[in-house]
């Protein structure tokens, strides 16, 4: 069991957003969490990553046997949890390659492995960058500064490729992508999938699921998962919208 979330409740500024979420993710699985705006799906991903704006008010989240909520965000990352941000932040003055190397070496140390020097790391990152079909010039630029929406999302997947997390949560990674960028991002994610890791995609639209095929589709509404099914559930949502489920819930 990679992740086991039980009856998770969380609030922001005293307003309860998550009202009892249950989710189980095993290695080798791909999950999609779908839902309308405000259903709580982005909150769910941020709470798992440890965003300080959210307060966990109930429930548990175990990650490989560790209580996630006992861990700082950086400890969750070192344990193998990764969040691809919906709105990747620009950091002027910090180069992409410097950040990637710093993050990579932090994990190496955590795993009891040798840090890589800049030359060794460059060899590694030159391979990884192919995964997202990015030009090497992006490495020397400041993190996300002046990147287009699609470039920012590809940069998130590049970070995922370098850090090789056990569980990656992709928060609306498809939003704002044109069809070519979507294909590149999806190919990148697919190439990183193994029997030992897992992906949770949080998304609005079925479109991404044509490229990254989920084993499970969950529908979130009102801060709960109200329906779980296979990939055909996404097609049904695409055809019928969300209202029939909301009415049922």
């Amino acid at each position, binding site marked *: 069991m990679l992740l086991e979330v039980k009856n998770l409740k969380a609030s922001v500024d005293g307003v309860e957003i998550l009202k009892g979420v249950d989710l189980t993710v095993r290695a080798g699985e791909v999950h999609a969490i779908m839902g309308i705006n405000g259903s709580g799906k982005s909150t769910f991903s941020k709470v798992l990553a*440890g965003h300080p704006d959210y307060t966990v008010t109930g429930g548990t989240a175990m990650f490989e046997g560790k209580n996630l909520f006992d861990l*700082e965000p*950086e400890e969750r990352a070192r344990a193998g949890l990764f969040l691809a*941000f919906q709105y990747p932040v620009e*950091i002027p*003055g*910090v180069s992409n390659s410097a*950040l990637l190397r710093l993050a990579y070496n932090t994990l190496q140390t*955590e795993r009891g492995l040798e840090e890589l020097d800049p030359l060794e790391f460059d060899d590694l990152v030159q391979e990884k960058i192919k995964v997202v079909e990015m030009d090497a010039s992006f490495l020397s630029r400041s993190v996300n500064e002046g990147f287009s929406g699609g470039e920012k999302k590809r940069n998130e997947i590049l970070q995922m490729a370098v850090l090789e997390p056990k569980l990656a949560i992709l928060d609306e990674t498809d939003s704002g992508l044109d069809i070519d960028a979507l294909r590149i991002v999806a190919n990148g994610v697919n190439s990183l999938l193994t029997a030992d890791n897992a992906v949770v995609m949080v998304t609005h639209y079925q479109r991404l699921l044509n490229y990254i095929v989920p084993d499970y589709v969950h529908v979130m509404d009102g801060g709960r998962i109200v329906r779980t099914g296979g990939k055909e559930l996404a097609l049904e949502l695409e055809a019928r919208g969300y209202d029939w489920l909301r009415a049922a819930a």
Partner: protein
Amino acid sequence: MNLTKEQCFEQLLLGKTVNSKGWLNDVRVAARAHALNFPSERHDDWRFTDLSALFQHAFYPVDSFAKLSLGEIEKFLIPDAIRLVFVDGCVAPELSDLKKTRAGVTVAPLADRLGDKSVETNFGRQAPYKQDSFVALNTNFFEDGAFVHVSGEVAAPIHILHIATRRDSPSAIYPRCLMVVEPNSRATVIEDYAGLDDGVYFSNAVTEVVLKDHAQLQHVRVQREEKNAFHIGHCWVEAGRGSVYTATSLAFGARVSRHTLHVTQQGEGAEMHLDGLALIAGRQIADTHTQIDHAAPRGKSVQLHKCIADGSAHAIFSGKIIVHEGAVGTDSAQSSRNLLLSGKAHIDTQPQLEIFNDDVKCKHGATVGQIDADALFFLKSRGLTEERARNLLTHAFAAEIIDKIPVPALVASLNRTILDERMSGVRS
């Protein structure tokens, strides 16, 4: 020892009399008469600057000069630079390296060049030793200084390195520098103020710069004094027609520091880029006062000053821009950007614009912010500790200034210092 301000200045005036011949002696004597014109905290220019920590000490003249080895100052050295080193205000030929100077370029101890016409003409001409007690003290007591005279172009950066050593009692040191860049000539000069072994001393520095027509100077000033030291620095720049003056002033060290930079565009079409950074923590105070006088037509000035204050530090920036009546077509932009790293730190920023003609383009602005919470969370979500993430973001904010320094070796060593040493363990 706890002195009053008056006692502190009287003690400073007991300093060692330096005898010079001729014109310089007259200047020294004249300066001495004004050494007690010390600043009042009621004076607008000194309103924000708490000098009480400075005034507590009795500072003594340096009477015997320490011998240092190159190894002891290694971390300050810049490879391939023309280097003139002063230890506690006295020139140290054995630490200096003037091999890369070429014909037309003089980098020499001021005391050796008093007969030089250019020295006599320009020394003390800008520095107001009859108005400012710190300038008066420097002018009266300076032991030696640096004279940089550039005719033509010099590729190697010129590194004027002032090292203060730890002494038995607090010492007063008076670094002095005169730079003259002849028409159509070009140079890069680094003024560097550093200390060793956690000494308590008062470094009171004065620099005068003359840029002749179409001269270009890249002027870097690094203040990295010891943490219990005091540093008061003044720099005057006179910019001729079509000259380009590019300054980067950095304040990292000292318990209390103040740097005053006063630039006058004397000739038409002069251009200047003034960048500044104060990065302080603990109980440090760093004050930067700049004044740009647009006194001739079609001048241009671009200024960016940043303060970063951690712990209970206090950073001050006062930037005055005066566009005089005849300075038509002036184009001036000033920006003050500030980063507060703790709830107890304090930043005062005071941009001032005085315009006396209609045909100008001037803009200025100031912002004060904190570490961006989203960026911090992003970095932590990539496995960086809170401290590491904050250092990285702080450094990134500082790097915009540091990276403009046209000496890569200095940029690299300053960046290393900030990332590795400066910000660790100084938060209080």
